[in-house]
């Protein structure tokens, strides 16, 4: 076993942290949100230049052939910075789905622009009725005059409002609860068959409800190869889990550090509040939770990169459960330590909880993964 970043990973993590420290201090992020910006286009361009968005893409299509373990420090940094940039949507979910489901030609037509950030992909898979049933899909795909058309409702779809292409899961056969008959499609959101209701989520990030009514779509790979589509879909969700876990672990780290700083500087009754044993012990509890979250973020990344590893099948579920719960403990503690300030909008610490609230609900929440593990005992 080895738990260290390699040189390339450390170098990227360092330059990304520098970039975000410069471009994404909390006040700047607040200003972006106040101005109604969905993300920061200049930072986005930099992320493209740095190769962050190309990390897991194939070399043949402008990528670096890296994996979830390479994304881990990247997603942690973005979580720390509370970044609104749609890296999870396009660089993790969209990129994985197209890479695994698309033919070489289909990949070649999309991925090079995804790698640079010029095209943003949105992963349109979740449906309101499915809730945390990860492969329940009602959206239908039908062929008319040699053209594939999709109909259904996808929500929430992260970053759909700024996406150049949607990657949509739909079924060519079977009923909604079956895992057979699924296929993945690329959809241009700027067409009559697609209508978006855009909103922001509780963490200020952008998402949409996507209504498909005979939307023209290009299949990724053979639409009748349900096995390939299902495996790409599952791998995409797995990559999403690893990305979300890394982001949550990064957020927990940042919230923890803010709380520790506050314990040292905030004075009450004539001394730093961090001298009180009750708060010191809370800090220790938070530190334990933080370390557990960090470990399980690694487990998730490892499970994505090495799906045949002995623990991989369970680790994704354990990780989503464990990281969410442990990170939540850290964030609750961090808010508590900040006292009244902790529950204000102007204080960064509470925003980590808001972000966690979104990430916990993506790709199955802690309860859903606990239930899955319980059933698999």
């Amino acid at each position, binding site marked *: *076993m*080895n*738990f*260290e*970043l*390699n040189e390339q990973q450390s170098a990227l993590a360092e330059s990304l942290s520098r970039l975000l420290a410069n471009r994404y201090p909390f006040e700047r992020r607040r200003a972006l949100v106040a101005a109604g910006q969905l993300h920061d286009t200049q930072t986005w361009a930099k992320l493209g230049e740095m190769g962050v968005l190309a990390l897991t893409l194939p070399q043949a299509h402008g990528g670096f052939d890296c994996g979830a*373990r390479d994304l*881990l420090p990247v997603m942690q940094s973005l979580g720390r910075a509370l970044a609104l940039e749609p890296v999870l949507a396009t660089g993790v979910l969209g990129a994985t789905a197209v890479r695994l489901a698309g033919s070489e030609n289909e990949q070649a037509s999309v991925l090079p622009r995804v790698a640079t950030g010029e095209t943003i992909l949105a992963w349109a898979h979740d449906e309101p009725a499915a809730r945390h049933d990860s492969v329940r899909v009602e959206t239908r795909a039908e062929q008319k005059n040699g053209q594939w058309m999709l109909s259904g409702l996808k929500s929430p779809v992260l970053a759909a409002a700024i996406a150049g292409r949607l990657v949509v899961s739909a079924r060519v056969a079977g009923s909604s609860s079956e895992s057979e008959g699924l296929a993945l499609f690329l959809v241009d959101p700027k067409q009559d068959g697609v209508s978006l209701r855009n909103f922001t989520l509780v963490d200020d990030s952008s998402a949409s409800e996507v209504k498909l009514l005979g939307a023209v779509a290009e299949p990724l790979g053979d639409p009748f190869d349900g096995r390939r589509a299902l495996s790409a879909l599952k791998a995409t969700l797995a990559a999403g889990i690893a990305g979300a876990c890394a982001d949550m672990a990064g957020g927990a780290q940042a919230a*923890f550090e803010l709380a*520790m700083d506050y*314990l*040292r500087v905030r004075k009450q009754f004539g001394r730093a509040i*961090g001298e009180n*044993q009750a708060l*010191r*012990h809370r*800090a*220790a*509890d*938070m*530190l*334990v939770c933080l*370390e*557990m*979250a*960090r*470990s*399980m973020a*690694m*487990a998730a*990344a*490892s499970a994505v990169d*090495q799906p045949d*590893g*002995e*623990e991989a099948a*369970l*680790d994704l*579920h*354990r990780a989503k*459960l*464990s990281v969410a719960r*442990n990170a939540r403990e850290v964030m609750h503690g961090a808010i508590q330590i900040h006292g009244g300030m902790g529950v204000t909008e102007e204080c960064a610490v509470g925003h980590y909880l808001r972000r966690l609230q979104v990430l916990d609900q993506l790709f199955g929440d802690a309860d859903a993964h*606990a*239930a899955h*593990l*319980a*059933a*698999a*005992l």
Partner: protein
Amino acid sequence: MELNLSPEQRAFRDDVRAFIRDRLPADIRERLRAGNFPRKQDIIAWQRILNERGWAAPHWPKRYGGADLGQMERLILLDEIYRAPAPIPSVFNVIMLGPVLLKYGTETQKEFFLPKLLNMDLWFCQGFSEPGAGSDLASLRTSARREGDQYVVNGQKIWTSSAHHADWMFALVRTDPEARKQQGISFLLIDMKTRGISVRPIISLDGDHHLNEVFLDEVRVPVSNLVGEENKGWDCAKFLLANERTGIANVGLCRERLDYARELAAHTLQAGRPLLEDVNLRREIATLDAEIRALEITNARFLLTESEQRRLPSFASVLKLKGTEIQQAIYQLLTRIAGPAGLERRTPAEPSLAALNARYFYSRAASIYGGSSEVQKDILAKTAVG
């Protein structure tokens, strides 16, 4: 980053598994599986079997009969022993005293004691805690005054596990009453048969005899039994306590006990149906399993990574706190699975579900011994807050 075992490490694990399968006496395995403590003779017998294979002391150098294994292999070996379940090599002999002798002992001490520690020819107990020195160990008062080539030891030790089984004790004693707290302490090896030693049992919450008070009244110990320098015993103690880290998380124990919880629930009927069909119980087991995995990775991450140790020097407190919390939760869960059938008191020798209640009661000590959870939190807070 690599979380999977290498092919060599997997092969080593297979070796260990095969060895344990072939050599672990079935009755020992069954006793431990049912939740009983190993008997004295179980511990001795199994450690001798391990010693035949050179595995009694995974981390000692080969020259002294150890296996000289790397950290990962040590973790694998310990994990497999716990999972069997088999008794782990004597913590007092192998984890605590052996490394202290290797680092601070004289050649004579090494040659005399190390082989006997390995083969359990001598059983050591640990004379650290005193009535006035628990978590605050350095306030110990047991004194040793020098008379010629002997120390004369007077005082009292308490919570001494297995003192009633022990042939010898390694003890911290105060050799300089004038010196400041941590100074003036020495590390002595004391033959339990020496005149002036009396051992009184402390019956613990589980109704069993693990703990003792040890009274030392004008006990004469040859100066040649001093380990390290006089008044430098605190160095030995700190080194010894730091060596506890490898086993501190008890990952394999947690895994084995949770596996038994699942097995027991599958064979326990409630209203004619296996208890394991209960959704809430399944979810509780699954959640504990996820926590054990988090502990396992955290354990390996810190033990195997120097940069992580530097980042969080107090990492052992994380492992102790979380490991204890999970262990205690599982021991309690086992009693809930045993249900009313676990309530009937039996002697420890009789097989019964009451063993699970006994283990649960005794498990409450886990967050008290070896530095209470509150002390661990103080240590972590010092790192985190300052």
